[in-house]
């Protein structure tokens, strides 16, 4: 199968390409960009006039809910959501039921995902058994089964001795640890940023210091052990400052921010909107500005969707009892574009944060259009506005704080391995 994508604005941050070029795909790989390879006769020609052609998105955190929580979402529903959002690779955290701490489970998940032939699924294995923060998981076995890194999802390792061992062990084999920086005692039972809004609404707060304290511990142990650490979902101005300093010091550290935290603050909770019950909590305008600045200057490496589909019933409860999370796979691209537009960041720079950079963090091959790489592409209309309507989302999770918002950036076509896996209905 040979595909010729013509007339599109090709953006490939890794190869520093941003111009109107043709893309040639053969045998599931990028054959060439620009001039037609010798003897290339296309079976299919896609006219991308007025559209942007970029590498398929690589999402650092998307919950697929399998195994165990199929009533919230399934691989089928969420992988379809992924490709309709232009996401062709995603990392899924280990907080499934059972937890991804057994090589067999990881193999099964990889196998089931592969059968769908949609987005590539890269599991993050549990860093400790059952995510309980007591004993090391079989990192090498899990790695062999397909885990690209190790994570505690949103559960903290309370015992610093264990955290130290986890980092030492991961560092021994060069595995990346994906950690959520939240000091568990300060955050206990907290459901919102410990500030003005939590005070007004009578919600138990999580102070910014909970992130700073956890970060201080993680950074210090990373420095001792040489572990490669990725901080998932940074939320505070102080956190950004600490990462900036750590990078300057030369620590092997990277971090991301969720698309929710780039656009929302504690005030969006309004009258107890359970869709704004997120972890980490939405923080202040000042924090939001600092996250944005950190993303602009490279302190924050990437944007993730933090996709967490939740069934309607689980959100129909008082704020604190409503399940945490927001759906995000289909919103990652338009929310990234919105951030770029509002902050005068180039399209190339923005796309880099959800393709090349995230692929680099995961250590996977996607996220670029280099010749001979997998032909995973996203073709979208950067100027088409669409209104977010939960019922129209492909994800089984309709839980979004962005309902009714109009966003620019509509995915028209997604290719994985040179196959069209999603095409917008005309």
């Amino acid at each position, binding site marked *: 199968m040979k595909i010729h994508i013509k007339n599109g604005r090709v953006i490939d941050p890794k190869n520093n390409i941003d111009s109107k070029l043709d893309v040639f795909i053969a045998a599931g790989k990028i054959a060439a960009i620009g001039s037609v390879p010798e003897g290339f006769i296309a079976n299919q020609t896609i006219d991308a006039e007025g559209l942007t052609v970029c590498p398929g998105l690589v999402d650092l955190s998307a919950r697929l809910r399998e195994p165990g929580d199929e009533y919230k979402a399934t691989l089928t529903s969420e992988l379809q959501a992924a490709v309709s959002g232009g996401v062709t690779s995603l990392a899924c955290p280990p907080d499934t039921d059972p937890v991804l701490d057994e090589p067999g489970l990881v193999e099964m998940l990889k196998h089931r995902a592969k059968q769908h032939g949609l987005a590539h699924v890269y599991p993050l294995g549990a860093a400790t058994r059952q995510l309980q923060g007591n004993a090391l998981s079989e990192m090498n076995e899990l790695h062999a089964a397909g885990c690209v890194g190790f994570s505690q999802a949103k559960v903290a390792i309370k015992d610093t001795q264990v955290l130290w061992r986890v980092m030492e062990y991961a560092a021994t084999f060069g595995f990346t640890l994906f950690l959520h920086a939240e000091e568990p005692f300060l955050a206990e039972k907290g459901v919102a940023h*410990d*500030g*003005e809004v*939590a*005070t*007004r*609404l*009578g*919600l*138990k*707060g999580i*102070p910014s210091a909970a992130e700073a304290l956890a970060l201080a511990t993680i950074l210090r142990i990373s420095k001792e052990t040489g572990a490669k650490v990725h901080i998932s979902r940074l939320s505070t101005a102080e956190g950004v400052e600490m990462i900036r300093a750590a990078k300057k010091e030369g620590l092997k550290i990277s971090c991301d921010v969720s698309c929710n935290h780039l656009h929302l603050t504690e005030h969006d909770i*309004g*009258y*107890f909107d359970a869709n704004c019950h997120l972890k980490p909590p939405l923080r202040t305008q000042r924090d939001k500005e600092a996250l944005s600045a950190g993303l602009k200057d490279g302190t924050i490496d990437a944007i993730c969707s933090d996709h967490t589909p939740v069934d309607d*019933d689980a959100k*129909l*409860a*008082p*704020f*604190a*009892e409503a399940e945490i999370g927001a759906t995000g796979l289909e919103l990652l691209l338009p929310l990234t574009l919105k951030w770029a537009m509002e902050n005068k960041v180039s399209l190339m720079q923005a796309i880099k944060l959800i393709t090349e950079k995230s692929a680099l963090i995961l250590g996977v091959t996607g996220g670029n259009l280099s010749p001979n790489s997998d032909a995973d592409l996203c073709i979208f209309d950067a100027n088409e506005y669409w209104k977010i309507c939960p019922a129209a989302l492909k994800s089984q999770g309709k839980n979004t704080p962005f309902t009714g918002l109009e966003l620019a950036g509509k995915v028209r076509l997604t290719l994985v391995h040179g196959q069209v896996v999603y095409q917008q209905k005309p």
Partner: protein
Amino acid sequence: MNNPQLDRDGNLQHLLSIEGLPKRILNQILDTAESFIGVAEREVKKVPLLRGKTVCNLFFENSTRTRTTFEIAAKRLSADVISLNVSTSSQSKGETILDTVDNLIAMHADMFVVRHAQSGAAHLIARHVPPHIHVINAGDGRHSHPTQGLLDVFTIRKYKPDLHNLRIAIVGDVLHSRVARSEIHALTTLGVPEVRVIAPKTLLPAQVQKLGVHVFHDMEDGLKDVDVVMMLRLQNERMNGAMLPSTQEYFKTYGLTQEKLKLARPDAIVMHPGPMNRGVEIDSTVADGKQSVILPQVTYGIAIRMAVMAILAGGSPAGDA
């Protein structure tokens, strides 16, 4: 964002919190309550404003006093009253709040009086019910207890009619108190120029000053020249632990005694939402003293709750009462 408490004409649709209610609505409730004060002294303690209506007291968290005053208020308005202690029935069987509410709607309840341990529960129910049903928040978590806040300002207005010239101190566990939040919003909305909170740092929420209050940690400083002292209840579970070392130490530092009360203005009144912990937050001689208006608060509470129900039911109370 729509104000969930007001209908499209700006009338009260639900009473969920004091915050977000305009002054005219607060005054409407207070003035209506005034007209109900006399009802209890009549031989027949009833007015027919809610005849044929069913008021459902839905208590997901135990309460005797608040539930009783709502019951009395509804009965004096001639409503039929059902009281459910849900904490001991359906919830323990796994039924969700909204399932419980739907069942009661199917039984043709017209008004819900809701208490729940979680902040935002009343908002959740109000969002869920059809437009002809009204919801009154009787306390949700730490968030709001609007009828308590209203009865407190009603009481203050009785003793100190010029709200624009008052200095008021709220003392105690503001962090966990829905009463304090409601009082603060009611007082600031009605134009009280100086509202103080007095508490140790462990019992104050983050950025409490943004609610429009002055923060004091010392009773002697905070009580100086105030016209009203509003004490808060200290929940048993907070008394000995990470928040406070002991009840004895609390009483010594933040308990209201005759001695400390002398720092306030000589005609200052003392209030407490009850139930009181004598010897913990308040000394018996103060609670039973001549400056205490704690029992009148309870009496006025019924009038306030009658007023809220009557306004929600659309009666014209001033005429009918």
